[in-house]
């Protein structure tokens, strides 16, 4: 029998934030609220579009994990790098790829951020320094240390954020990359989104330790966990780490304790979860928590409702544009396999 580690309950995840917010914080969190709302509704629309047959293939939604995406991104500056796995529609948007390009990419359109060659799992933007969207579990992690190697090589002071899942922590190349990040002081902030499952497998069945972040410490990488359901906690904790990283130039691994509301992909009904688990985490819903905090400091409910309506309208327009865009041209399928080599046509 496999040895099972204990799983963290929602109660153990919950962090405390002060009731008070400064005026600047209120302004900031209003923006974050709107963004998380946009992410939630975006993914819901994507799901509907999928069931309507607007696209096919694998589609992994980030619903429930919005606080990690919004909070981490808010702690970064524009020139920082982000790389992720396949559950990354909203991370791509957070990094600045227009949402319409992300949706159009899923729909196989010419206006998609990768011109229809990447798809749901493979969003990229060189301009926005979003280095993918990677479909091989753990495969993006060695790339992240390469990006950080470049930062050090050129003596720059950006950092790389590398998202990975809890189940990716058992991939050999992830551990290789952690070790190299440690020996060469590569400024990568590894964010392990511990949503408790790798597909249908409970993390406690595949990972003997209860706290994933402790594994990084074994490699000499500083690490901690954080409440990934509370965006204020995420932002504050990440900002402090990023600040420290810009000075000490060392890697850091942050285990974001979060929860995946939906199945692994849209075709997974997630029947394997113990009863009540989802509801337990929904008590910590990042949108509701922030909403309550904003209301508590005197933000008007109407103002937040206005966001809800605005996001709805915005998304309707985005989906219309993505629908209306031209399909990616078949004539371009041979483009960009290789940078042209003399005497060899792209085809």
């Amino acid at each position, binding site marked *: 029998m496999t040895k099972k580690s204990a799983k963290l309950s929602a109660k153990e995840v919950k962090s405390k934030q002060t009731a008070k917010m400064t005026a600047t914080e209120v302004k900031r969190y209003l923006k974050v609220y709107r963004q998380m709302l946009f992410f939630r509704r975006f993914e819901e629309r994507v799901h509907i579009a999928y069931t309507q047959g607007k696209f096919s293939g694998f589609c992994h939604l980030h619903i429930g994990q919005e606080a990690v995406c919004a909070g981490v991104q808010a702690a970064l500056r524009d020139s920082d790098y982000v790389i992720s796995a396949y559950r990354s529609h909203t991370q791509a948007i957070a990094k600045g790829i227009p949402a319409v390009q992300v949706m159009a990419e899923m729909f196989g359109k010419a206006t998609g951020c990768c011109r229809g*060659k990447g798809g749901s799992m493979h969003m*990229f933007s*060189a301009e926005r320094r979003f280095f993918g969207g990677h479909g091989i579990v753990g495969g993006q*992690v060695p790339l992240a240390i*390469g990006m950080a*190697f*470049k930062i050090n090589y050129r003596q720059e002071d950006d950092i790389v954020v590398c998202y990975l899942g809890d189940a990716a922590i058992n991939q050999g190349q992830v551990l*290789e990359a952690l070790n190299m990040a440690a020996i060469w002081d590569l400024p990568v902030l590894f964010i392990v989104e511990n949503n408790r499952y790798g597909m249908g497998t409970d993390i406690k069945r595949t990972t003997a330790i209860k706290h994933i972040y402790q594994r990084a410490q074994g490699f000499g990488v500083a690490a901690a966990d954080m409440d990934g359901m509370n965006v204020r906690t995420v932002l504050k904790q990440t900002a402090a780490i990023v600040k420290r990283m810009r000075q000490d130039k060392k890697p850091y691994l942050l285990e974001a304790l979060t929860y995946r509301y939906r199945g692994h992909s849209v075709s997974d009904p997630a029947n394997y979860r113990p009863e009540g688990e989802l509801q337990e985490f929904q008590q910590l819903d990042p949108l509701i928590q922030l909403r309550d905090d904003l209301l508590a400091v005197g933000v008007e409910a109407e103002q937040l409702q206005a966001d809800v309506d605005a996001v709805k309208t915005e998304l309707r327009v985005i989906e219309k544009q993505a629908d209306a865009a031209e399909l990616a041209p078949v004539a371009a399928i041979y483009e960009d396999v*290789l940078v042209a080599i003399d005497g*060899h046509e792209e085809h």
Partner: protein
Amino acid sequence: MTVPTQATKISIREALRQAMCEEMRRDADIFLLGEEVAEYDGAYKVSKGMLKEFGARRVVDAPISEAGFAGLGIGAAMAGLRPIIEMMTWNFGIQAFDQIINHAAKVRYMSGGQFKVPLVLRGPNGVAHMLGATHSQYIEPFLAHVPGLVVVAVSTPYDAKGLLKAAIRDDNPVIFLESEFMYGDTGEVPDAEYLLPLGKGMVVREGTDATVVAWGKMLKLVLRAADVLGDDVSLEIINPMTLQPLDTQLLVASVNKTHRLLVVEEAPAFAAIGAEIAAQIQERCFDELDAPVARVSAKHLPVPYADHLERATLPSVEEVVAAVRQLLYMDTQA
């Protein structure tokens, strides 16, 4: 093959080192990273002295993590550097096939052309001697199969230097194949700077009776076989140099002249480069062929250890001679 008059005789090892050093002096974004490349001067001493010249920032000893540091090279290349990653041998580079196939070969395409991966992954490939099956493999059939990669094989000091310089300047991921057994081979290399274009083969020796294609160690084998066959047979010997993308035009032109083709390769024949060349030539030169395309290759085996068993597995001069005689129907006509 014409080499300019001002030339010096050097080894392949030296040619590769010269290529890396010249390019690294020219472009500060190039660095060399791999196991034992710095303080130990390279497992096969290809990078000897480079740490001293370029320092630890640009000549970097890596832990034994082939997948990890191949991926590091890909990420660094995507971010704007031009890494040279040394695989101690390509047998160990197989650990990095996920990174090479799933990432190096894919990110340009999947990103719709937004990223390029100017990366050279180089190291010895093929059979050395009495190392057993895990240390005696040929990776060109695997990787030439993958869209998005360039695959280059080294045969002489001249092509080693010219091709490596071109590979370093190319904006694609280049799989660069050397051989432990050939690092000591010497030959003339021009003193003046030169590059050999990727994607282009070279006629090593002109001839009229049959075309023989070979690269790496097999080129030497073919040249020895040609000596055995003597003046009776006029072989046109072609070194394709780049296996992906292959210089099919050069092969077609040669076969249209000689009407016969033999491919000699060190890997087992099944689904290997020779099979691809044979298919392409029959598609394009069917009416020109006076005999079926012939192949000499390794037996379909994990390479055995013992000297005599290893020799029995690999292509030999005798097999090449016999294959040429058969291709020309020399024994049946007598």
